[in-house]
């Protein structure tokens, strides 16, 4: 176990330092995968507590706009701008948690969908503040090098994964799981669902906003269609579903797999519509035939193998920790 953690830590450090030596195309991949890892972990955290978000682009967009506005209007540099990005994400997520109150499932999903669409309309309609539909560029003088942005993305992704891991060690994790399975029962055990919902959603919102905030420094341009893009919402849910929902490794593996698939379809088939079509089909088929994702399917297979080799040791086979 110890060895495993050391191995993961080494991998993480390698990922953070890789941008220093990598060519631009690799940095681009690090950026995309790192951002998606953050989004996926963030989405999965909310899903762990039974909150299915269909509007993660809301947090992403809020984070992007927060980082962009403090940079352009107040002259804040790269690192400083990420703090308001996270705060905006966390606060708006907490507000959504309070607003949706006891409503879970469908209502929460619809509320998030409406939130991200509504924010897009607001961003278009307030051009004095956000630059409106025409969009705005980040102040060029403040922009760090691509290597720096890629390193910070990798660092943030690792931090999100570490936070998700630490949470999985605490009772918080079990409280969320209890809420997901049966909220009334969890209440009887002394869990205050509202408080947990606020906590988990704030954390989730902060992570997604951080991803958006970092990304804006790489692309250098933002308009409402980019900020509150449905694409972000779709990616944020596909990665954990494909990798393995409600697991630790799932969102990370899913992020790599999703970006890999998107690159493969783009080089093989070209058109933009095709990759979105593939995403849609992945969602449908994952839910129908692989609802536990890559990680879940792998675990089942490993258990099946070990059982087959040693004989019927059903009683002693423990569920894998991941």
């Amino acid at each position, binding site marked *: 176990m110890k060895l495993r953690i050391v191995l993961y830590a080494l991998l993480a450090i390698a990922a953070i330092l890789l941008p220093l030596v990598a060519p631009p195309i690799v940095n681009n991949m690090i950026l995309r995968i790192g951002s998606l890892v953050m989004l996926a972990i963030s989405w999965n955290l909310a899903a762990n507590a039974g909150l299915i978000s*269909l509007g993660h682009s809301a947090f992403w967009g809020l984070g992007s706009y927060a980082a962009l506005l403090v940079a352009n209007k107040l002259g804040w540099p790269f690192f400083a701008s990420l703090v308001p990005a996270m705060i905006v994400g966390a606060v708006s997520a907490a507000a959504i948690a309070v607003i949706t109150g006891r409503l*879970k499932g469908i209502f929460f999903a*619809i509320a998030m969908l409406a939130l991200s*669409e*509504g924010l897009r309309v607001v961003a278009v*309609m307030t051009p004095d503040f956000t630059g409106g539909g025409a969009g705005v560029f980040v102040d060029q003088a403040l922009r760090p090098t691509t290597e720096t942005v890629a390193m910070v993305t990798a660092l943030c992704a690792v931090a999100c994964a570490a936070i998700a891991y630490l949470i999985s060690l605490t009772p918080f994790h079990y409280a969320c799981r209890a809420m997901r399975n049966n909220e009334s029962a969890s209440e009887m055990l002394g869990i205050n669902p509202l408080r947990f919902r606020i906590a988990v959603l704030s954390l989730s919102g902060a992570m997604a906003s951080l991803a958006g905030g970092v990304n804006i420094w790489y692309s250098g341009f933002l308009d409402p269609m980019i900020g509150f893009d449905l694409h972000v919402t779709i990616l944020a849910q596909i990665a954990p579903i494909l990798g393995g929902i409600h697991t630790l490794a799932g969102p990370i593996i899913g992020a790599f797999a999703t970006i890999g698939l998107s690159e493969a379809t783009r080089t093989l088939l070209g058109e933009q519509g095709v990759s979105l*079509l593939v995403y849609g089909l992945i*969602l*449908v088929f994952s*839910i129908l035939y692989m609802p536990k994702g890559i990680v879940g399917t792998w675990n089942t297979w490993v258990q099946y193998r070990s059982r087959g080799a040693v004989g019927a040791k059903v009683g002693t086979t423990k569920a894998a920790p991941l």
Partner: protein
Amino acid sequence: MSLFWQCIVDSLLLGGLYSLMSIGLSLGFGVTRIINFAHGEMIMFGAYGAYFASVLLGVDPLLSLPLVSIVVAVTAAVLFKALIEKVLNAPHINQILLLFGLSLALQNVAAILWTGDARSVATPYSLTAYEFDLLLVPHGRIIAFIVAAILIVALFCWLRFSELGRATRAVAENGQAATLMGINVSRMYMLSFGINAALGAATGAISSFLLTITPFMGFHMLVKAFAIVVLGGLGSVAGTIIGAFALAFAETWVSYYVPEGNGWAEGVAFIVLLFVLIIRPKGILGQAVAVH
């Protein structure tokens, strides 16, 4: 003063279209307890069906409407059997994500087949209007309203008087009791999903000469339909109609009386939705629908 009356007339006409747009979604939820995230795509396919019937065959959208609705309904029933039926008893997250994925796939099938170009159907009545003093009432909107009203009345009659309609209501009320009464519940699910799709396609056919048709038109209409259904009360068909007119009034009012209102009107649905969720989550006529 004429602006006021114009606003009233426009809201009423828009309300008819919105009622038809969301009533299928509401009925489908009432029976299957699944929110059809692909409802917008039913509308979109209906609109494309009417468009191609008009362009290739020269058939008026009003004439092609029944055929288009039937084709979309049958396709939807097949999709229901093949995909959605498998998640009827699965956790909510699976249902939501499956339908979301289906919606995404359908949208992009349309985008690949027919490109993202905006289209619209030109009919003799789409550019003409009645004029009373300063009041302008476009013919196309009146026709759309009448068609919507006929279909909604037909739906109500079907639900109230026909054998299948009563069975549908029985399933919506209590699926297990309906099974004990000898109703084939899974067939009723498929039927109500098909009707839900047919109503969506009919909405698409009549919007084909009112709005621009794109592969992505469904998503915006879906979010509006959500706002209407939640406002009226999930699962209440009568509440849906009240919700539709309420949203139509709110949107028209904003676009007439708020500066730069046309842009803000697009956001009204989301604000309504969030407010309803805060103040009265069960909507105007919400029955005691179990909140999952």
